C-alpha cells in the first residue's frame, strides 16, 4: 500500500481526501474498490505486492492519469472527449518521426503539443461554438486523427527513438522515476486549476448551472473551448511518455485509451450530470484500472478479457453509487 500512496500529492491531499470522503461520501466506493482489488490480487497473483511490481503499476498508470485528468474536467462540463486516444496516437507517431530525425526532445515535444492543441481547439470549437454534441464532435475528430496517424506512418512503426527520449521513461529524479514526477506535477497543476482558480469554478458551473454563469457575465464558451484545448495538450504531453515507454511510434499505440480514461473518471465518482467531480477520485480510479490490468497480466489473462473486466469495474462502481443515491 505504501507505494500506492506515491501519487497522492501531500499530507494536505490526504487530509483533503478524508475531509471530502466524510462530507460527501461520493467516490468512497472507488477507494473501497481499489483496496479490494489490491487484496484480491495480493492473494491471487504471484508477486503482485512486490515493491518492484507496485512501482510498475504506478509507472504504467502515469500516461492514463495524464489523459484522465482533463477527461475529468470535460465530463464535469457534461461533455466527453472520445478523440484523446487517436490524438495521442497521432502525436506519438509524429513525435517519434521528428525525434528520429532530430535526435532531440525539444522540437518533437513541441510538435506533439501542437497536434494536441489543434485537435483540442477543433473539439472545443465544434462543441462550444457550433453546439455539436461532444460525443459526435469528438467521434469525428477521433476518425480524423486516427486516419492521419495511419497515413503519416503508412501503417508502419517508427523505430530508432533516440536515447534522450527513452530516458524520459527510464530516468529518475532524486530516485523518483521521471514519469511519476511528471504525473505528480500534472496532478498538482490540475488540483490548483480546478480548486483555486476562477477557471476551476467555471468548470463546476459549466456542468452545474450554465445559466448562473451567463447571469454572472462570464464568457462561458471561451472556458468550454479551453477545457477541450487542455485535453488536447495533455494528449500531446502523454505522447512524450508513451513514445519513451514503447521506444517507437506506432499507428495504433494508444487506441482505446479513452475507454480506460472514461472508466477511471467514472469509477472515481465524477458524474456526467450537474458538474459533480473530484480529481482525487480520478486518481483512485486510474490506480484501480492500473491495478486491475497489472493483476490480470500477472495472472496471465489476455488483454481482451481485461477490457471486459474494466467494463465490469465501471458498472460495479456506478451501481454502488446509484444504490447509495437511492438510499439517501
Amino acid at each position, binding site marked *: 500500500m505504501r507505494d500506492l500512496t506515491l501519487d497522492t500529492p501531500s499530507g494536505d491531499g490526504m487530509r483533503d481526501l478524508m475531509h471530502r470522503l466524510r462530507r460527501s461520501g461520493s467516490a468512497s466506493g472507488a477507494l473501497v474498490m481499489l483496496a479490494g482489488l489490491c487484496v484480491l490480487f495480493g492473494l491471487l497473483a504471484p508477486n503482485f505486492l512486490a515493491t518492484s511490481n507496485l512501482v510498475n503499476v504506478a509507472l504504467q498508470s502515469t500516461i492514463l492519469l495524464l489523459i484522465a485528468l482533463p477527461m475529468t474536467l470535460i465530463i464535469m462540463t457534461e461533455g466527453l472527449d472520445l478523440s484523446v486516444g487517436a490524438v495521442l496516437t497521432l502525436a506519438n507517431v509524429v513525435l517519434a518521426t521528428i525525434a528520429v530525425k532530430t535526435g532531440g526532445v525539444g522540437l518533437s515535444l513541441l510538435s506533439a503539443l501542437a497536434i494536441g492543441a489543434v485537435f483540442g481547439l477543433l473539439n472545443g470549437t465544434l462543441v462550444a461554438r457550433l453546439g455539436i454534441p461532444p460525443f459526435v464532435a469528438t467521434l469525428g475528430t477521433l476518425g480524423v486523427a486516427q486516419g492521419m496517424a495511419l497515413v503519416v506512418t503508412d501503417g508502419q512503426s517508427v523505430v530508432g527513438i533516440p536515447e534522450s527520449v527513452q530516458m524520459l521513461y527510464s530516468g529518475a529524479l532524486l530516485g523518483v522515476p521521471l514519469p511519476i514526477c511528471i504525473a505528480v506535477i500534472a496532478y498538482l497543476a490540475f488540483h490548483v486549476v480546478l480548486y483555486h482558480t476562477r477557471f476551476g469554478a467555471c468548470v*463546476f458551473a459549466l456542468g452545474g*448551472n450554465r445559466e*448562473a454563469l451567463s447571469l*454572472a457575465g462570464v464568457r462561458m464558451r471561451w472556458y468550454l473551448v479551453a477545457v477541450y484545448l487542455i485535453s488536447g495538450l495533455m494528449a500531446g504531453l502523454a505522447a512524450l511518455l508513451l513514445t519513451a515507454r514503447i521506444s517507437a511510434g506506432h499507428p495504433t499505440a494508444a487506441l482505446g485509451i479513452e475507454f480506460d480514461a472514461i472508466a477511471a473518471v467514472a469509477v472515481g465518482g465524477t458524474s456526467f450530470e450537474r458538474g*459533480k*467531480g473530484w480529481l482525487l477520485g480520478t486518481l483512485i480510479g486510474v490506480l484501480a484500472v492500473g491495478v486491475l490490468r497489472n493483476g490480470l497480466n500477472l495472472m496471465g489473462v489476455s488483454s481482451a478479457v481485461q477490457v471486459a473486466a474494466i467494463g465490469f469495474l465501471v458498472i460495479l462502481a456506478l451501481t454502488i453509487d446509484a444504490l447509495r443515491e437511492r438510499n439517501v
Partner: protein
Amino acid sequence: MTTIPPLLELRGISKSFTGVQALDDVSLQLFPGEVHMLLGENGAGKSTLMKVLCGAHTADAGEFFHKGQPVTIAGPADAQRLGIAVIFQEFTLVPYLSVAQNIFLGREPRGRLPGTVDHGLMRKQARAIMDQLGMTLDPGTAVATLGVAQQQMVEIAKALSQDARILVLDEPTAALSDNETDKLFRMIGKLKSQGVAMAYISHRMAEVFSMGERITVLRDGKKVGSRMPHETTPDELVSLMVGRKVDMSYAREFCKSPGPVALRMRGVSARSGIRGIDLEVRAGEIVGLAGLVGSGRTEVARAIFGADPVESGSIEIFGQRQSGGPAQARRLGAALIPESRKTQGLALIRSVGQNLMLASLPRLFPRGWYSPASAATLANELIERLRIATPGPDRRVGVLSGGNQQKVVIGKWLAAQSKLFVFDEPTRGIDVGAKAEIFALIDSLVKKGAAVLMISSELPEIVNVCDRTYVMREGCVAGHLTRTEMSEEAILTLGMHHA
C-alpha cells in the same frame, strides 16, 4: 405614512407579447425598508412585471424613477447597476461549488497568482454578508448538500453581495417548511431594517398581511388596486383578484347520473409533494382539479400514471389497482394529455399518422410487423372523427396549430381505446376559437361514457365546464365543490393560503 421618496418607482409600465397585453399601464412604488406585496391569479402579469424589473424583458411603454431620477432598464446590466436583484423560484446556483464560491461566481477576489482565487478572502467576505443575514452556515459547504431554504438564503446573499438595494422575491416561501419560513421572515426583517426595498410575490394571505407594508393586486395585466394592510381584508383581496366578468361560455349539458367509478385515489402520498389525496372520478363526468400553480395538481396526474413513485395510499383505475408505471396505466385504460404538449405529448418532427398510433402499437400490430394499411386506416379515421385540420396523415405534427396538435394528442389516446382521460391544462397555448372545439371534444368523450379529470389554471374553464371540482392547496386536496357550489371566488378562497 412616509415622506421619503420611493427607491424605485414604475409609472405606466406596459408590455405585450404577440397580441397578449401582459402588462397594461402598471404603476408601482417600492420604498426603502418596506415590503410591497404583489398578488394576482396565475397569468395576472406578476412574472412579466418581475422580468421587466430585472431587465429580462424591456417594457413597451412607461417610465422608471430611481430615487426620483428617471432611469431606463433596457437589460440585466441596467438592473444590476440600479441595485435590483430578483430571486426566482428556480435557483441559479452551482451545486458542487461552495456557498462562498456561489456568492462570488464570476466576481471572485483575485489571489496572488494570475487567475487564482483568494479563497481565504472570499470566505471572509462571504462570512460578512452571511452574518449580516444571520446565516450560521459554513461558507465552505457545498450547495448540493443544502436544503431549499438554505439555497434560497444563498441566493439572497448573492444578491446582497452585488449591493442589491431592491430585492424582488418570487413566492419565496412556496417550497419552505414553517420553520424555514420563520427564518426567511427574520432575514427579511433584517433587510428591512437595513433599508432594502422589496417586492414580494405571494399566494399566502397570512404572509401578505404579516409581512407587507403595502399590497398591490394585479389582474389581467392591470393594477386593480393598492391597499394598506390595515385597510383591507382577505375577502376584498380575493374579489379584487377575481374581479372579471365571466365572459366565456362553454354550453354543455352537465352530467346528471354519473356511471361507475373510473378513478379512485385513497390517501395517496408521493415524494413529489402530494399528501393524502382522496378523489373519485366517475364515467360520464368531467371533474376539475383546480388550485394554484405548484399546489400539486400535475403531481396528482403523474401519480395516477405511475410516473412518480407513490409512497402510500392506493390508486384504482376501473376497479383495478394501479401499482406499476405508465404502461400499466395505459393498459387499464387511462390516458394523460400533458401540460407541455410539445415536449411530453407529441413527437413534433414525426407525422400526424405516426403520432396517432404511438400509444396503440401493440393493438394495431399484434405480431410486431408494421402494416401501413392499418396505420393509414386508423389515422384517417381519427383525423375525420376529431376534425383535425391537416392535409393528410403524412403532415408533420410540428407545423399544425396548437388546437390541432392537442387533437392529435387526444386522438392518440382514443386510438388506444382509453376510457379515463386526465387533461393537464388542455387549453394552454390554444387560441379562443379552438378552445371551444377542444371542450366540445372533451364533452363528446364523456357523452360516450369516458371519465375526465381536468387540471386547469383558468378558473372560468373549471367553473363553466366541470360537473364538480376538487381544489388543491400545498399538495393536499383542500376541498371539493359541487356544480352549485362552484364559483371563481369559492375556488380561489379554498386554493389560497389562509392563516
